[in-house]
Protein backbone atom coordinates (compact mmCIF):
# COMPACT_ATOMS: atom_id res chain seq x y z
CA UNK A 1 0.00 0.00 0.00
CA UNK A 2 2.98 2.24 0.50
CA UNK A 3 3.37 2.91 -3.22
CA UNK A 4 0.11 4.85 -3.22
CA UNK A 5 0.22 8.59 -3.46
CA UNK A 6 -1.78 10.12 -0.65
CA UNK A 7 -4.21 12.96 -0.48
CA UNK A 8 -6.16 14.37 2.42
CA UNK A 9 -9.51 15.66 1.28
CA UNK A 10 -10.71 18.80 3.02
CA UNK A 11 -14.35 19.75 3.34
CA UNK A 12 -15.69 21.70 0.36
CA UNK A 13 -13.12 20.28 -1.98
CA UNK A 14 -13.06 17.42 -4.41
CA UNK A 15 -10.46 15.15 -5.86
CA UNK A 16 -10.18 13.13 -9.06
CA UNK A 17 -7.10 11.38 -10.32
CA UNK A 18 -6.01 9.09 -13.12
CA UNK A 19 -3.08 7.91 -11.00
CA UNK A 20 -3.76 5.48 -8.19
CA UNK A 21 -4.32 7.59 -5.10
CA UNK A 22 -5.30 6.92 -1.57
CA UNK A 23 -7.66 9.63 -0.39
CA UNK A 24 -8.49 10.05 3.24
CA UNK A 25 -11.20 12.18 4.74
CA UNK A 26 -13.04 12.64 8.03
CA UNK A 27 -16.80 13.01 8.02
CA UNK A 28 -19.30 14.27 10.57
CA UNK A 29 -22.57 15.47 9.18
CA UNK A 30 -20.76 16.01 5.89
CA UNK A 31 -21.20 13.50 3.11
CA UNK A 32 -18.53 12.10 0.79
CA UNK A 33 -19.41 10.38 -2.45
CA UNK A 34 -16.80 8.06 -3.94
CA UNK A 35 -17.34 7.61 -7.65
CA UNK A 36 -15.47 4.86 -9.40
CA UNK A 37 -15.19 4.03 -13.09
CA UNK A 38 -15.10 0.26 -13.53
CA UNK A 39 -13.84 0.53 -17.12
CA UNK A 40 -10.96 3.01 -16.69
CA UNK A 41 -10.25 2.05 -13.06
CA UNK A 42 -10.15 5.65 -11.97
CA UNK A 43 -12.05 7.37 -9.23
CA UNK A 44 -12.96 10.60 -7.57
CA UNK A 45 -14.40 11.79 -4.32
CA UNK A 46 -16.10 14.89 -2.94
CA UNK A 47 -16.84 16.11 0.57
CA UNK A 48 -19.72 18.51 1.01
CA UNK A 49 -21.08 20.16 4.11
CA UNK A 50 -24.56 21.33 3.17
CA UNK A 51 -27.16 19.94 0.78
CA UNK A 52 -28.08 22.87 -1.42
CA UNK A 53 -26.49 26.00 -2.76
CA UNK A 54 -28.64 29.01 -2.03
CA UNK A 55 -27.28 31.07 -4.90
CA UNK A 56 -25.73 33.61 -2.55
CA UNK A 57 -22.31 32.25 -1.68
CA UNK A 58 -19.65 31.20 -4.08
CA UNK A 59 -20.90 28.18 -5.99
CA UNK A 60 -18.39 25.89 -4.34
CA UNK A 61 -18.49 22.15 -3.67
CA UNK A 62 -19.36 23.00 -0.08
CA UNK A 63 -22.88 22.32 -1.30
CA UNK A 64 -24.08 18.86 -2.30
CA UNK A 65 -25.85 19.71 -5.50
CA UNK A 66 -22.75 21.48 -6.79
CA UNK A 67 -20.23 18.98 -5.41
CA UNK A 68 -22.03 16.04 -7.05
CA UNK A 69 -22.32 17.65 -10.47
CA UNK A 70 -18.72 18.86 -10.37
CA UNK A 71 -17.44 15.42 -9.40
CA UNK A 72 -19.34 13.74 -12.22
CA UNK A 73 -18.20 16.41 -14.69
CA UNK A 74 -14.61 15.95 -13.67
CA UNK A 75 -14.76 12.20 -14.20
CA UNK A 76 -16.40 12.68 -17.57
CA UNK A 77 -13.59 15.10 -18.39
CA UNK A 78 -11.13 12.32 -17.59
CA UNK A 79 -12.84 10.12 -20.15
CA UNK A 80 -15.37 8.26 -18.03
CA UNK A 81 -18.77 7.30 -19.37
CA UNK A 82 -21.68 7.80 -17.05
CA UNK A 83 -22.80 4.16 -17.45
CA UNK A 84 -19.47 2.90 -16.10
CA UNK A 85 -19.71 4.89 -12.88
CA UNK A 86 -20.72 3.49 -9.54
CA UNK A 87 -21.06 5.31 -6.25
CA UNK A 88 -20.42 4.66 -2.59
CA UNK A 89 -21.73 7.17 -0.10
CA UNK A 90 -20.58 7.86 3.43
CA UNK A 91 -21.28 10.24 6.27
CA UNK A 92 -24.32 12.27 7.14
CA UNK A 93 -24.25 11.53 10.84
CA UNK A 94 -26.01 13.79 13.31
CA UNK A 95 -23.30 14.74 15.73
CA UNK A 96 -24.88 17.90 16.96
CA UNK A 97 -27.93 17.55 19.16
CA UNK A 98 -30.32 19.89 17.40
CA UNK A 99 -33.78 20.50 18.72
CA UNK A 100 -35.26 18.18 16.15
CA UNK A 101 -37.67 20.73 14.80
CA UNK A 102 -35.37 21.52 11.91
CA UNK A 103 -34.69 18.73 9.50
CA UNK A 104 -31.24 17.46 10.28
CA UNK A 105 -28.31 18.43 8.09
CA UNK A 106 -26.83 14.94 7.87
CA UNK A 107 -30.12 13.48 6.77
CA UNK A 108 -30.59 16.15 4.11
CA UNK A 109 -27.04 15.69 2.89
CA UNK A 110 -27.67 11.98 2.36
CA UNK A 111 -30.96 12.61 0.65
CA UNK A 112 -29.51 14.95 -1.95
CA UNK A 113 -26.87 12.32 -2.76
CA UNK A 114 -29.43 9.58 -3.29
CA UNK A 115 -31.75 11.76 -5.35
CA UNK A 116 -29.06 13.18 -7.61
CA UNK A 117 -27.33 9.86 -8.20
CA UNK A 118 -30.62 8.21 -9.04
CA UNK A 119 -31.47 10.99 -11.47
CA UNK A 120 -28.18 10.42 -13.23
CA UNK A 121 -28.65 6.64 -13.14
CA UNK A 122 -25.46 6.03 -11.18
CA UNK A 123 -25.91 2.97 -8.96
CA UNK A 124 -25.07 3.20 -5.27
CA UNK A 125 -23.19 -0.03 -4.63
CA UNK A 126 -22.35 0.56 -0.99
CA UNK A 127 -23.03 3.06 1.74
CA UNK A 128 -22.64 3.79 5.39
CA UNK A 129 -24.67 6.79 6.41
CA UNK A 130 -26.48 8.35 9.33
CA UNK A 131 -26.03 7.45 12.94
CA UNK A 132 -24.56 9.62 15.66
CA UNK A 133 -20.87 9.08 15.07
CA UNK A 134 -18.27 10.48 12.74
CA UNK A 135 -16.42 8.44 10.16
CA UNK A 136 -12.96 8.11 8.76
CA UNK A 137 -12.76 6.79 5.24
CA UNK A 138 -9.91 5.94 2.92
CA UNK A 139 -10.74 5.65 -0.77
CA UNK A 140 -8.51 3.87 -3.27
CA UNK A 141 -9.07 5.56 -6.59
CA UNK A 142 -7.82 2.64 -8.70
CA UNK A 143 -9.82 -0.18 -7.15
CA UNK A 144 -12.77 1.74 -5.81
CA UNK A 145 -12.25 0.11 -2.44
CA UNK A 146 -13.17 2.10 0.64
CA UNK A 147 -11.89 1.46 4.13
CA UNK A 148 -14.26 2.79 6.69
CA UNK A 149 -14.18 3.27 10.42
CA UNK A 150 -16.66 4.81 12.82
CA UNK A 151 -15.05 7.28 15.18
CA UNK A 152 -15.66 8.00 18.79
CA UNK A 153 -17.39 11.28 19.32
CA UNK A 154 -14.41 12.84 20.98
CA UNK A 155 -12.30 12.37 17.86
CA UNK A 156 -14.19 15.01 15.97
Amino acid sequence: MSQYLQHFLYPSSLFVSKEPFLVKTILGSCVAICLWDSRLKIGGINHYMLPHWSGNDLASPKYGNIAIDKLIDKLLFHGSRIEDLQAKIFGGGELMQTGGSRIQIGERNIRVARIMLEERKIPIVASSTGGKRGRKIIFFTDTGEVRHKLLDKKNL
Partner: protein
Amino acid sequence: MNNLSDRQLLKELKQRLEAGKNSEKEIKDLTLELQSVSKKLKDSEALKSHFISNISNEIVNPFTSILGLSKAILSVEKHDWKKVVSMVALIHSEAFNLDFQLKNIFVAAKIEAGEIAPNIAKVNIRSLLQTVVDSFNIISRKMGISFDIQFNIEHGFGKNFYFKTDSEKLKLILSNLINNALKYSYKDSKVVISVWLDEDDVLKISVQDFGTGISEKNQQTIFERFKRLDTGINSINRGHGLGLSITKALLDVLSGDIEISSQKGEGSTFTISVPEAKNIVDGFSGEGNDIFFDEEDEIF
Protein backbone atom coordinates in the same frame (compact mmCIF):
# COMPACT_ATOMS: atom_id res chain seq x y z
CA MET B 1 -68.56 -10.11 -19.68
CA ASN B 2 -70.94 -9.91 -16.81
CA ASN B 3 -73.24 -7.00 -16.62
CA LEU B 4 -72.41 -4.64 -13.81
CA SER B 5 -75.00 -3.97 -11.20
CA ASP B 6 -75.94 -0.34 -10.59
CA ARG B 7 -74.14 -0.35 -7.31
CA GLN B 8 -70.94 -1.68 -8.84
CA LEU B 9 -71.22 0.87 -11.59
CA LEU B 10 -71.60 3.68 -9.09
CA LYS B 11 -68.61 2.46 -7.14
CA GLU B 12 -66.48 2.27 -10.23
CA LEU B 13 -67.52 5.77 -11.29
CA LYS B 14 -66.70 7.11 -7.87
CA GLN B 15 -63.28 5.55 -7.94
CA ARG B 16 -62.49 6.95 -11.34
CA LEU B 17 -63.67 10.39 -10.34
CA GLU B 18 -61.46 10.19 -7.28
CA ALA B 19 -58.49 9.13 -9.37
CA GLY B 20 -59.15 11.99 -11.75
CA LYS B 21 -59.19 14.43 -8.88
CA ASN B 22 -55.96 13.04 -7.50
CA SER B 23 -54.13 13.29 -10.76
CA GLU B 24 -55.42 16.82 -11.17
CA LYS B 25 -53.91 17.70 -7.83
CA GLU B 26 -50.68 16.01 -8.81
CA ILE B 27 -50.53 18.05 -11.98
CA LYS B 28 -51.16 21.19 -10.01
CA ASP B 29 -48.32 20.35 -7.65
CA LEU B 30 -46.00 19.57 -10.51
CA THR B 31 -46.90 22.83 -12.21
CA LEU B 32 -46.08 24.72 -9.06
CA GLU B 33 -42.79 22.92 -8.80
CA LEU B 34 -42.05 23.69 -12.43
CA GLN B 35 -42.78 27.33 -11.83
CA SER B 36 -40.42 27.50 -8.90
CA VAL B 37 -37.70 25.76 -10.88
CA SER B 38 -38.09 28.12 -13.77
CA LYS B 39 -37.95 31.05 -11.41
CA LYS B 40 -34.71 29.73 -9.99
CA LEU B 41 -33.36 29.34 -13.50
CA LYS B 42 -34.25 32.92 -14.29
CA ASP B 43 -32.58 34.09 -11.11
CA SER B 44 -29.41 32.23 -11.90
CA GLU B 45 -29.39 33.61 -15.42
CA ALA B 46 -29.72 37.10 -13.98
CA LEU B 47 -26.92 36.35 -11.57
CA LYS B 48 -24.73 35.22 -14.43
CA SER B 49 -25.22 38.38 -16.42
CA HIS B 50 -24.74 40.36 -13.24
CA PHE B 51 -21.48 38.47 -12.80
CA ILE B 52 -20.27 39.38 -16.26
CA SER B 53 -21.06 43.02 -15.83
CA ASN B 54 -19.33 42.93 -12.47
CA ILE B 55 -16.22 41.29 -13.77
CA SER B 56 -16.00 43.64 -16.69
CA ASN B 57 -16.34 46.61 -14.36
CA GLU B 58 -13.59 45.32 -12.17
CA ILE B 59 -11.22 44.55 -15.01
CA VAL B 60 -12.09 46.75 -17.94
CA ASN B 61 -12.34 50.01 -16.01
CA PRO B 62 -8.85 49.87 -14.52
CA PHE B 63 -7.40 48.83 -17.87
CA THR B 64 -9.08 51.70 -19.64
CA SER B 65 -7.66 54.13 -17.10
CA ILE B 66 -4.19 52.67 -17.37
CA LEU B 67 -4.25 52.86 -21.15
CA GLY B 68 -5.60 56.40 -21.14
CA LEU B 69 -3.11 57.62 -18.56
CA SER B 70 -0.09 56.08 -20.22
CA LYS B 71 -1.15 57.58 -23.52
CA ALA B 72 -1.42 60.94 -21.82
CA ILE B 73 2.07 60.53 -20.40
CA LEU B 74 3.45 59.81 -23.84
CA SER B 75 2.17 63.11 -25.10
CA VAL B 76 3.25 65.23 -22.15
CA GLU B 77 5.49 68.17 -23.11
CA LYS B 78 8.91 68.23 -21.55
CA HIS B 79 8.30 71.28 -19.38
CA ASP B 80 5.16 69.63 -17.96
CA TRP B 81 7.00 66.61 -16.60
CA LYS B 82 5.68 67.23 -13.10
CA LYS B 83 2.26 66.15 -14.27
CA VAL B 84 3.72 62.75 -14.99
CA VAL B 85 4.24 61.98 -11.33
CA SER B 86 0.59 62.27 -10.48
CA MET B 87 -0.39 60.28 -13.55
CA VAL B 88 2.01 57.51 -12.63
CA ALA B 89 0.49 57.47 -9.18
CA LEU B 90 -2.92 57.00 -10.77
CA ILE B 91 -1.60 54.21 -12.95
CA HIS B 92 -0.18 52.54 -9.91
CA SER B 93 -3.43 52.69 -8.02
CA GLU B 94 -5.40 51.33 -10.97
CA ALA B 95 -2.89 48.54 -11.54
CA PHE B 96 -2.90 47.73 -7.85
CA ASN B 97 -6.65 47.47 -7.92
CA LEU B 98 -6.57 45.32 -11.02
CA ASP B 99 -4.04 42.97 -9.50
CA PHE B 100 -6.15 42.74 -6.37
CA GLN B 101 -9.33 41.96 -8.28
CA LEU B 102 -7.62 39.35 -10.43
CA LYS B 103 -6.24 37.62 -7.36
CA ASN B 104 -9.75 37.53 -5.94
CA ILE B 105 -11.21 36.17 -9.13
CA PHE B 106 -8.64 33.41 -9.39
CA VAL B 107 -9.10 32.41 -5.78
CA ALA B 108 -12.86 32.40 -6.28
CA ALA B 109 -12.40 30.11 -9.27
CA LYS B 110 -10.23 27.80 -7.21
CA ILE B 111 -12.76 27.70 -4.40
CA GLU B 112 -15.56 26.97 -6.84
CA ALA B 113 -13.52 24.16 -8.40
CA GLY B 114 -13.03 22.61 -4.97
CA GLU B 115 -9.28 22.90 -5.25
CA ILE B 116 -8.55 24.84 -2.13
CA ALA B 117 -6.84 23.38 0.94
CA PRO B 118 -5.12 24.95 3.92
CA ASN B 119 -1.37 25.26 3.68
CA ILE B 120 -0.29 25.54 7.28
CA ALA B 121 2.93 27.08 8.52
CA LYS B 122 4.12 29.14 11.46
CA VAL B 123 3.24 32.67 10.51
CA ASN B 124 4.61 35.86 11.98
CA ILE B 125 1.30 37.66 12.36
CA ARG B 126 2.77 41.10 13.03
CA SER B 127 4.91 41.13 9.93
CA LEU B 128 2.15 39.62 7.81
CA LEU B 129 -0.22 42.38 8.88
CA GLN B 130 2.44 45.01 8.25
CA THR B 131 3.06 43.68 4.74
CA VAL B 132 -0.63 43.83 3.91
CA VAL B 133 -1.05 47.32 5.35
CA ASP B 134 2.06 48.56 3.54
CA SER B 135 0.68 47.39 0.23
CA PHE B 136 -2.20 49.81 0.70
CA ASN B 137 0.04 52.74 1.69
CA ILE B 138 0.00 54.65 -1.57
CA ILE B 139 -3.75 54.38 -1.90
CA SER B 140 -4.48 55.28 1.69
CA ARG B 141 -2.12 58.27 1.53
CA LYS B 142 -3.92 59.52 -1.52
CA MET B 143 -7.20 59.36 0.35
CA GLY B 144 -5.72 60.91 3.46
CA ILE B 145 -6.52 57.85 5.51
CA SER B 146 -4.13 56.70 8.20
CA PHE B 147 -3.83 53.24 9.64
CA ASP B 148 -3.85 52.73 13.36
CA ILE B 149 -2.53 49.27 14.18
CA GLN B 150 -3.15 48.04 17.71
CA PHE B 151 -1.24 44.86 18.30
CA ASN B 152 -2.43 43.56 21.63
CA ILE B 153 -0.61 40.30 21.98
CA GLU B 154 2.02 39.96 24.64
CA HIS B 155 4.50 37.39 23.64
CA GLY B 156 7.72 36.01 24.89
CA PHE B 157 9.96 36.22 21.89
CA GLY B 158 10.50 39.92 21.53
CA LYS B 159 7.84 41.48 19.39
CA ASN B 160 7.25 38.48 17.25
CA PHE B 161 4.16 36.43 17.57
CA TYR B 162 3.92 33.20 15.63
CA PHE B 163 0.66 31.48 14.87
CA LYS B 164 0.01 28.32 12.89
CA THR B 165 -2.22 29.18 9.99
CA ASP B 166 -2.27 29.63 6.21
CA SER B 167 -0.43 32.87 5.49
CA GLU B 168 -1.57 33.36 1.89
CA LYS B 169 -5.23 32.95 2.79
CA LEU B 170 -4.96 35.18 5.83
CA LYS B 171 -3.25 37.81 3.67
CA LEU B 172 -6.04 37.78 1.14
CA ILE B 173 -8.67 37.93 3.88
CA LEU B 174 -7.00 40.97 5.45
CA SER B 175 -6.45 42.62 2.09
CA ASN B 176 -10.13 42.30 1.33
CA LEU B 177 -11.17 43.69 4.69
CA ILE B 178 -8.75 46.62 4.43
CA ASN B 179 -9.70 47.24 0.83
CA ASN B 180 -13.36 47.45 1.81
CA ALA B 181 -12.57 49.67 4.79
CA LEU B 182 -10.75 52.11 2.50
CA LYS B 183 -13.46 51.94 -0.12
CA TYR B 184 -16.14 52.87 2.36
CA SER B 185 -14.18 55.47 4.30
CA TYR B 186 -14.55 59.18 3.83
CA LYS B 187 -11.49 61.22 2.97
CA ASP B 188 -9.16 62.20 5.78
CA SER B 189 -10.18 59.62 8.33
CA LYS B 190 -8.58 56.51 9.70
CA VAL B 191 -8.80 52.75 9.70
CA VAL B 192 -8.17 50.98 12.98
CA ILE B 193 -6.79 47.46 12.90
CA SER B 194 -6.68 45.57 16.19
CA VAL B 195 -5.13 42.19 16.83
CA TRP B 196 -5.63 40.16 19.96
CA LEU B 197 -6.11 36.63 21.28
CA ASP B 198 -9.33 35.70 23.02
CA GLU B 199 -9.49 33.51 26.12
CA ASP B 200 -9.39 30.35 23.98
CA ASP B 201 -6.27 31.56 22.13
CA VAL B 202 -8.28 32.21 19.00
CA LEU B 203 -6.67 34.92 16.88
CA LYS B 204 -8.92 37.95 16.46
CA ILE B 205 -8.31 40.72 13.98
CA SER B 206 -10.72 43.57 13.55
CA VAL B 207 -10.74 46.20 10.85
CA GLN B 208 -12.72 49.31 11.67
CA ASP B 209 -13.57 52.19 9.40
CA PHE B 210 -15.44 55.41 10.09
CA GLY B 211 -17.17 55.58 6.76
CA THR B 212 -20.64 55.09 5.38
CA GLY B 213 -21.61 52.12 7.55
CA ILE B 214 -24.07 49.39 6.72
CA SER B 215 -27.69 49.29 7.77
CA GLU B 216 -28.84 46.31 9.79
CA LYS B 217 -30.92 44.98 6.95
CA ASN B 218 -28.00 45.09 4.56
CA GLN B 219 -25.67 43.40 7.02
CA GLN B 220 -27.58 40.20 6.35
CA THR B 221 -26.86 40.23 2.66
CA ILE B 222 -23.38 41.65 2.22
CA PHE B 223 -21.75 38.24 2.08
CA GLU B 224 -23.67 37.35 -1.02
CA ARG B 225 -21.42 37.39 -3.99
CA PHE B 226 -21.45 40.47 -6.13
CA LYS B 227 -23.95 42.17 -3.91
CA ARG B 228 -23.68 45.90 -3.89
CA LEU B 229 -25.59 47.69 -1.27
CA ASP B 230 -25.95 50.78 -3.34
CA THR B 231 -26.95 49.41 -6.70
CA GLY B 232 -27.05 52.75 -8.46
CA ILE B 233 -24.66 53.06 -11.38
CA ASN B 234 -23.42 56.40 -10.15
CA SER B 235 -22.71 55.30 -6.62
CA ILE B 236 -19.40 56.76 -5.52
CA ASN B 237 -18.34 53.65 -3.73
CA ARG B 238 -17.80 50.39 -5.46
CA GLY B 239 -19.38 47.28 -4.06
CA HIS B 240 -18.18 44.87 -1.46
CA GLY B 241 -18.44 42.62 -4.46
CA LEU B 242 -16.65 39.36 -4.59
CA GLY B 243 -14.36 40.23 -1.71
CA LEU B 244 -16.54 39.31 1.22
CA SER B 245 -17.82 36.05 -0.19
CA ILE B 246 -14.21 35.04 -0.81
CA THR B 247 -13.29 36.16 2.69
CA LYS B 248 -16.02 33.97 4.08
CA ALA B 249 -15.07 30.95 1.99
CA LEU B 250 -11.40 31.33 2.96
CA LEU B 251 -12.35 31.59 6.61
CA ASP B 252 -14.26 28.34 6.17
CA VAL B 253 -11.00 26.72 5.08
CA LEU B 254 -9.27 28.08 8.19
CA SER B 255 -12.23 27.03 10.40
CA GLY B 256 -12.63 30.71 11.18
CA ASP B 257 -15.51 33.11 11.35
CA ILE B 258 -16.42 36.73 10.68
CA GLU B 259 -18.66 39.21 12.47
CA ILE B 260 -19.87 42.64 11.51
CA SER B 261 -20.91 45.44 13.71
CA SER B 262 -21.96 48.57 11.97
CA GLN B 263 -24.12 51.60 12.24
CA LYS B 264 -25.33 53.49 9.23
CA GLY B 265 -23.36 56.70 8.99
CA GLU B 266 -20.83 55.82 11.65
CA GLY B 267 -18.71 53.15 10.06
CA SER B 268 -18.26 49.41 10.27
CA THR B 269 -16.12 46.93 12.12
CA PHE B 270 -15.37 43.54 10.65
CA THR B 271 -13.85 41.08 13.10
CA ILE B 272 -12.40 37.76 12.06
CA SER B 273 -11.66 34.84 14.39
CA VAL B 274 -9.11 32.26 13.35
CA PRO B 275 -8.31 29.28 15.58
CA GLU B 276 -4.75 28.05 15.49
CA ALA B 277 -4.33 25.17 13.07
CA LYS B 278 -3.13 21.86 14.36
CA ASN B 279 0.33 20.80 13.39
CA ILE B 280 -0.81 18.43 10.75
CA VAL B 281 -4.09 16.98 9.74
CA ASP B 282 -5.25 14.53 12.38
CA GLY B 283 -3.72 11.16 11.94
CA PHE B 284 -2.52 11.94 8.48
CA SER B 285 1.04 11.99 7.24
CA GLY B 286 4.02 12.33 9.50
CA GLU B 287 2.62 9.82 11.92
CA GLY B 288 3.68 6.73 10.09
CA ASN B 289 1.27 4.36 8.51
CA ASP B 290 -0.78 3.45 11.53
CA ILE B 291 -4.00 4.82 10.16
CA PHE B 292 -3.75 2.82 7.00
CA PHE B 293 -3.52 -0.53 8.69
CA ASP B 294 -6.32 -0.13 11.13
CA GLU B 295 -7.73 -3.50 12.02
CA GLU B 296 -11.12 -2.10 12.82
CA ASP B 297 -11.55 -0.90 9.26
CA GLU B 298 -14.53 -2.21 7.43
CA ILE B 299 -14.07 -2.60 3.73
CA PHE B 300 -16.69 -1.38 1.29
